[in-house]
């Protein structure tokens, strides 16, 4: 009874497949294009064809720049659009997870279309460098806008923004005078009161790696074991969830990134704003080794075909205007000292940062993962 409908559907399949084979896919089908009748699949393909702007053909006189990025913020796209408007240079983007994008760049080798690799985490930036897919960025403008400590030694990558990983606490239950260092959180007095997300998360791995760099493997392992023993619950959720759990009374103190505090405070959800109001932010290790920060940055791909455009984009992104925008939209700390900080970040004031080469985050990451597994920090 419905075989007619189905055979129409089938014919449509065959046609679409043939069409695709014509597009250069390595599928060839015995095209049985008898009658052409409308079917859902077919009409879709027809109407959607104009939307296919997949290949990065230069569409403007300004040329193009191709980005593989693991940063997923709306503000990034806004800035790319603004850059295109200013320069006429088209910005093509593939978004993905950083290690996967590095793998793709590696496998594409000298043929890679990518000009810039943008990601979060110094360790990953360093591993891109270690995988030999980057080259030095030569630009006086960038050197001026980005301080040397927020750049790779050979300038193979440069910072775009930073974030601090701080201690947050329940304002009603914890006196900030009780807080001092990350190390302190591993002490017995915090047993059953510490909240932190899973050690499978990169933010924690890089933090642990930085501690290995500062205190050595043994001490860092003891610290991780202390944290694992003090946890108020099995690690779950993201950074924001730790803040919520503090307010819910699961634990008293937590470790999280600064910009999530900002995002909670600026949330459109009244309940989240309440959470932000009930937690305090504490920058640890001010008297000792400094607060752990991490960096978001961009590397210039070794086999970049649009090197000049890529450098232009980097100069634009590290400029005061773009930097202010990144900071305003995302509550990250700008790398450019000229940039305007949002009020919340201003209110936190200056703080002492950890003096660890970001490259160490990458080099020591496997060790950090190993330690976390060993001490049972899930």
């Amino acid at each position: 009874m419905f075989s007619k409908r189905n055979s129409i559907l089938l014919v449509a399949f065959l046609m679409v497949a043939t069409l695709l084979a014509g597009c250069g896919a390595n599928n060839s089908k015995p095209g049985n294009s008898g009658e052409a009748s409308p079917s859902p699949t077919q009409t879709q393909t027809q109407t959607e064809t104009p939307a296919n702007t997949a290949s990065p053909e230069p569409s403007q006189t300004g040329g193009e720049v191709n980005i593989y990025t693991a940063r997923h913020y709306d503000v990034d796209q806004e800035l790319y659009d603004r850059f295109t408007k200013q320069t006429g240079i088209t910005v093509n983007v593939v978004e993905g997870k950083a290690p996967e994008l590095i793998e793709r760049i590696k496998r594409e080798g000298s043929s890679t279309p990518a000009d810039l690799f943008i990601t979060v985490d110094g360790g990953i930036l360093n591993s891109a460098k270690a995988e030999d897919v980057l080259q030095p960025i030569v630009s006086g403008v960038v050197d001026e806008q980005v301080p040397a400590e927020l750049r790779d030694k050979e300038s193979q990558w440069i910072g775009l923004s930073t974030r601090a990983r701080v201690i947050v606490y329940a304002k009603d239950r914890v006196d900030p005078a009780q807080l001092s260092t990350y190390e302190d959180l591993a002490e017995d007095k915090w047993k059953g009161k510490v909240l932190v997300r899973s050690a499978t998360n990169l933010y924690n791995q890089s933090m642990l790696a930085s501690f290995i760099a500062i205190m050595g493997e043994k001490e860092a392992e003891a610290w991780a074991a202390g944290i694992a023993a003090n946890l108020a619950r099995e690690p779950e959720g993201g950074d924001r969830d730790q803040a919520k759990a503090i307010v819910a009374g699961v634990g008293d103190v937590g470790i999280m990134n600064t910009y999530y505090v900002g995002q909670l405070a600026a949330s459109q959800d009244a309940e989240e704003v309440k959470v932000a109001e009930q937690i305090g932010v504490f920058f640890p290790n001010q008297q000792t080794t400094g607060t752990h920060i991490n960096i978001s940055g961009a590397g210039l791909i070794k086999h970049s075909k649009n090197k000049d455009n890529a450098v232009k984009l980097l100069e634009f992104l590290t400029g005061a205007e773009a930097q202010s925008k990144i900071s305003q939209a995302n509550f990250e700390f700008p790398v450019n000292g000229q940039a305007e900080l949002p009020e919340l970040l201003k209110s936190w004031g200056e703080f002492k940062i950890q003096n660890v080469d970001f490259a160490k985050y990458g080099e020591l990451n496997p060790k950090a993962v190993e330690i976390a597994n060993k001490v049972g920090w899930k």
Partner: protein
Amino acid sequence: MKITLLPRSAGRHVNGWTMTSVIGAAVVLLPILYVLACLFRPPNDNWSKVKQFLLTDYVLGSAKLVFFTGFFAAFIGVALAWLIAGYTFPLRNFFKWALVLPLAVPPYIAAYTYSSMTGYTGIIQATLRNRFDVALPPGTIEVMSDRGAIFILTLFLFPYIFMMTRVFLERQSASFIENARLLGHKPISVFFRVVLPLSRPAVMAGVMLVVFEVLSDYGVANYFGVQTVSTAIFQTWFGMYDVDSAMKMAAWLMIGVIGLFMIERWLRRSKRYASTTSRSHPLRPQRLKGLAAWGAAAFCTVIFLLAFAIPIAQLAAWSIQYGGKIWRSDFADLIANTIKGAGIGTAIILLIAIVSSRAARMFDSPFMQALSRMMSAGYSVPGAIVAIGVLAIFIELDGRLAPLYRAMGKDDGALVLSLSLAMLLTGYVIRFMATGYGALEAGYEKMPRVYSEASRTLGRSSLFTFLRVELPLIKGSLLSGFVLTFVEIIKELPLTLLLRPFNYDTLSTRAYQYATDERVFDAALPSLLLVMIGLVSVLILLRPERR
């Protein structure tokens, strides 16, 4: 009779069908073989560390998740399928298609939604706190756990089993069930003595899909902090920067799944499920009365609310509240890309599935069986691992085709195929061959071979046999296969992330972009649109069934 017939038909079948089958198999198998080849590389340091610290826990974690999800999903799926196929009760016709809808919801989005709803700032606790001044002790509602993962995966995957079993029961089982009823079997006895054994191929096909999904799931397990083989693979890759060990682990996972498959086949080796009555009429449902009828309706309602209505209502509420902020003019492109990718991908998959399940049927041998199993194996491994295989093959292919590209006037070393949509589509085909193939195989399995053989003996061509004899009999399976695969591709994330061409965003990548940054509210709008497309496709394609 059969023996003399086979070689002849084999000879006659060296035509388009065989060619397509071989090409299809090659496309699907090469990247899978690439991953499997990792097994033969010498293990490195990390591998031994992985084995020491991770493997046991994570294998147990996966086994637990698979067992419980498989069990509960099969229970819910088969129970609902039998209720709806075998009985009439209030709202039955609504539930018949509505209970398929949870498939349109990506499990990781359901996970985010549920954990936000039940979390401290979520609607449940916030309402209790603000309206009634009731503060739940922390941990009262705990979805972020092993149990939560089983809950989410069961609710959003059971429709595979429901759908396949229901279609089977309605179309193929009537005479057996009606005879059993005539012979005075009680409903319970009919269910356990007839329905369950009879529908085993369909149930197993569904269960296998669920098992695949659970094994390859990374999103839910990672978010809920459940340790599985998939999370171990990514921890090895992202944490230890060791792609080789990660792929080795994925290869073992694949081997395990193929083994599972072969065992299931072997267990029902001697049983035949085809029915040779000349007319298989649809099953006539019995009317449930009183309490039983309302009980059935209530059961369906609870499942429907939990697995669809509640999370979707929450997504809709968030979309209305926060959608304005994230609305960009490119949403039309996102929708277009989503539908286009899924449409073309599904078409290719079904084509290859038809051809290869016919081939597997025609040349039934252990080799063919193993081959077809391997073609479906892509479903059981995390998408990102499949993606690496595809990437490797396509970049290699581009290298081989370099002379051709030069002749076409491209730059030296230009990448053409691996920058085109073809690469992503190939990824889809490999990853989701199983949904199309599983559905068609179940369809073919219950169709006696003699039908096709008779047609061929009468001198009809292979194509004619397919269109006029087989197609009408497998149409239900074909439809299920289409819906399942289409919806599956719409939801797909890791392959799309890694294999897409420049500036190619889909609803699922956009939802991910927000969700990964813990912006669950902002992820609501793309998620909701994604679910809507899945929903519409289910409605369009299931309409012919409602008369």
